[in-house]
């Protein structure tokens, strides 16, 4: 069997690349040993957001409904139906999975469920067959690093099969996921602990956001214990003379590449597949996209890389995209795009920062969501906006406006003259940019 392109892994890197490949006439085969959609669709982005939404609604009804004028129920008698929350998330995942399959079919992409192995730069073995390919994309994703402190820790992939939620979960690791999970439990009235494997808790975030997160976690009464402060007495884990009190440890560790079995030598960088600006590996014809190349741990970055590879295969010249928003679906949500203050400083650029809170914004008030702010980082010469940071209930959507602005090299002037509808939370963008005019 001969293909123009074989893609190993059907996560956001693989499946998006496959659709684009099909659309541009490449004979394409996707191989995945598990489920269509990869980590992102089956255990990551989508299902976690679904259960987080359940938890947010639960908290809102329990603690906020009466203020909004809704009564006739006993807030203390409110029950969180975990099984139903999971069921809801599964049905969303299924729908989206079928959507991917439909798009593949429509664009002539073939799919094979099997473990794939690379036997030569142009051959992949799967399902006891040798498949020839002019190009191969490795999009096999990542998994949390193993850890030794908690031998009984569960992996996130198994979390959704739990029959009952733990009361005192211990979340071990670092990154956005740990914050989302901690708040998930806390919104349901459980008592989560974070054991952080390093600082800052969320890599790549601006110090200012990190500080906000620490403040917010304190308010939520979620404690963060640095791993190095843990000790063992008689085989039990202790923190400052206190035995660690948890009923379930969950591995939220930073991630490492999942490499397919292969017969060829691929150059690695810190355990990830080393790639150039076109996501080419050290072996001609083999590309690597998504978590496996270690450039980012974000689904949208994985997809963008997948598309860039297809463009490259087709000889279409496109500038690599580098502005990936970092979204955290916490309560309230957090989003960051572009350069951080530390990066601006390091680059020796002259910059200004303007920030405006949501507390005077009409729409935010009506929604009972006035916690948060929008922060603009711009250089002082042309006033080009180089970084945007948002804390808001809908920050992960608000950041898209900043995405267009940065992509088009927009300035605070452009933002300030863009009429924003009233009332919207997005108006804060316009207001804060007015502050940035000279």
């Amino acid at each position, binding site marked *: 069997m001969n293909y123009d392109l074989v893609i190993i892994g059907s996560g956001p890197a693989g499946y998006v690349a496959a659709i684009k490949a099909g659309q541009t006439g490449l004979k394409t085969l996707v191989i995945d040993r598990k489920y269509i959609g990869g980590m992102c669709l089956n255990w990551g982005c989508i299902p976690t957001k679904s259960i987080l939404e359940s938890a947010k609604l639960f908290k809102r009804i329990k603690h906020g409904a009466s203020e909004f004028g809704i009564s006739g129920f006993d807030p203390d008698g409110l029950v969180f139906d975990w099984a139903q929350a999971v069921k809801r998330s599964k049905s969303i995942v299924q729908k989206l999975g079928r959507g991917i399959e439909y798009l593949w079919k429509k664009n002539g992409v073939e799919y094979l469920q099997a473990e794939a192995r690379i036997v030569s730069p142009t051959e992949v073995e799967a399902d006891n067959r040798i498949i020839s390919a002019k190009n191969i994309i490795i999009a096999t994703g990542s998994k949390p690093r193993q850890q030794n402190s908690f031998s009984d820790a569960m992996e996130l992939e198994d979390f959704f099969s739990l029959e009952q939620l733990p009361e005192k979960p211990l979340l071990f690791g670092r990154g956005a996921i740990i914050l989302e999970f901690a708040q998930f439990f806390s919104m349901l009235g459980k008592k989560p602990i974070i054991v952080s494997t390093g600082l800052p808790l969320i890599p790549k975030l601006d110090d200012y956001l990190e500080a906000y997160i620490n403040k917010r976690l304190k308010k939520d009464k979620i404690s963060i214990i640095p791993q190095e402060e843990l000790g063992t007495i008689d085989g039990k884990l202790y923190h400052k003379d206190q035995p660690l009190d948890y009923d379930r440890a969950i591995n939220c560790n930073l991630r490492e590449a999942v490499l397919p079995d292969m017969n060829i030598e691929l150059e690695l960088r810190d355990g990830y597949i080393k790639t150039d600006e076109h996501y080419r590996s050290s072996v001609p014809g083999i590309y690597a996209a998504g978590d496996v190349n270690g450039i980012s741990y974000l689904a949208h970055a994985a997809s963008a890389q997948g598309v860039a590879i297809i463009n490259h295969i087709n000889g279409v010249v496109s*500038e690599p995209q580098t502005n990936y928003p970092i979204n955290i679906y916490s309560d309230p949500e957090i989003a960051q795009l572009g350069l951080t203050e530390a990066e601006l400083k390091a680059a020796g650029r002259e910059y200004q920062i303007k920030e405006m809170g949501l507390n005077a914004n009409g729409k935010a008030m009506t929604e009972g969501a006035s916690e948060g702010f929008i922060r603009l980082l711009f250089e002082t010469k*042309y006033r*080009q906006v180089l970084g945007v940071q948002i804390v808001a209930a809908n920050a992960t959507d608000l950041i898209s406006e900043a995405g267009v602005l940065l992509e*088009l*090299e*927009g*300035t605070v*002037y*452009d933002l300030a003259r863009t009429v924003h509808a009233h009332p919207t939370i997005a108006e804060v963008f316009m207001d804060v940019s007015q502050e940035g005019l000279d």
Partner: protein
Amino acid sequence: MNYVFKFPDIGEGLEEGKIIEWYVEKGQSISSGDALVKMETDKVVTDIPSPKSGIIVQRFGAIGDTVKVGNALVEIETEAGEATMASASEPAKANSTEAIDEKGFGVVGTIEVAGDGAYLPSSNEGIAIEQIVQTKSQKVLATPVARAMAKERGIDINLVTGTGPAGRVTSKDIEKHRSGSEAVGLVQTPKMQDAAPQTEHEFVPLTQIRKTIAKNMLRSKQNAAHMSVMDEIEVSELVTTRARINAKLQGTKLSYLPFIIKAISIALKKHPVLNAELDFDNERIIYKKSINIGLAMDTDDGLVVPVVRDADRKSLIQLADEIALFADKAKSRKLSLDDMRDGTFTITSYGSIGGYFAVPVINYPQSAIFGVGRISDKPVIKDNAVVPGKVMPISMSVDHRIVDGGEVARFLNFVLEMLAEPMLLLAYEGGER
């Protein structure tokens, strides 16, 4: 509708020109192919012909003004039929290549027609242009920062090639756009200087001619498979023959170059592949009917290559006169585009300045270049004895894709035979047996 004719890309990588003389007046009627204006560029002086027939409604720019490629030259009220056609097809043709019929348009066969957005919407080109802009131009796609940077650096953003989606001009494109013309008189602070203000480097913007040379050299090296051959030839006979001829000549004296041109012209007839070009895209070789010899000339501004047309049909004296004329024109930057077009083979006599052997770069897409070094006194062996001789070193590069080694060797043997024994030029002139 009226047709606005913009200063076309006349090839050679030129981006702007100076108006030397207007041949047309407002209200004058012209035919397509008539010369409109005489322009001087960094490299040549050339007439720009009109692409359409009609009446001149407006002329842009006065004598001495610099006009950039893509800027309006004249507005022509075209005859009814043609006018509707022009207007109907124009938007779709923005930035495309317009085929021009032969008449009066030897320039480059086709002329790049600058898009409608190709002239400056923001002032400094006179009210007349602005009026047209209002009705015809669309703003070039550019990011806000790119616009601000271009404005600050005095760069016409319409002339910057955008690499963003849909050709959007981004800040990077402005950074990259350091064209000589735009940079003149502007102190641009390059990035490196920001980092190290005490740097001892001087940053000089490229001139048009330098850019053209750079582009052509690179194109040649990237496209042709260079192969070089070197040899030496004893030319005592040529030295004395030349001296004898010069003793009798009035006016222009002969240098060695006319002899070399003559010998090469004769040999090219026998070895046409050296007077050919490879048309790889169409999988064919184009054999040139004429023998037009380009002569590489060093000027203060850089290298120029005027072309002696039909060299095979000219006498040694005619060749000498033509060389002298070209040398004069090159020095005073008076070479016209016509003077430099249509070369089929090039000779570089680097030895006139210095140097023995060299590896000349082919004047692409030609297939060969012949280099002559300095003639020097050297011992040679004649009739089993070491005697003083006059030795001329030669170096030749060919495009090995179409010229085989054996072919060059045979060609060279023939040329060198004639240079060693110049009387043979008489014997072979006009064709062999």
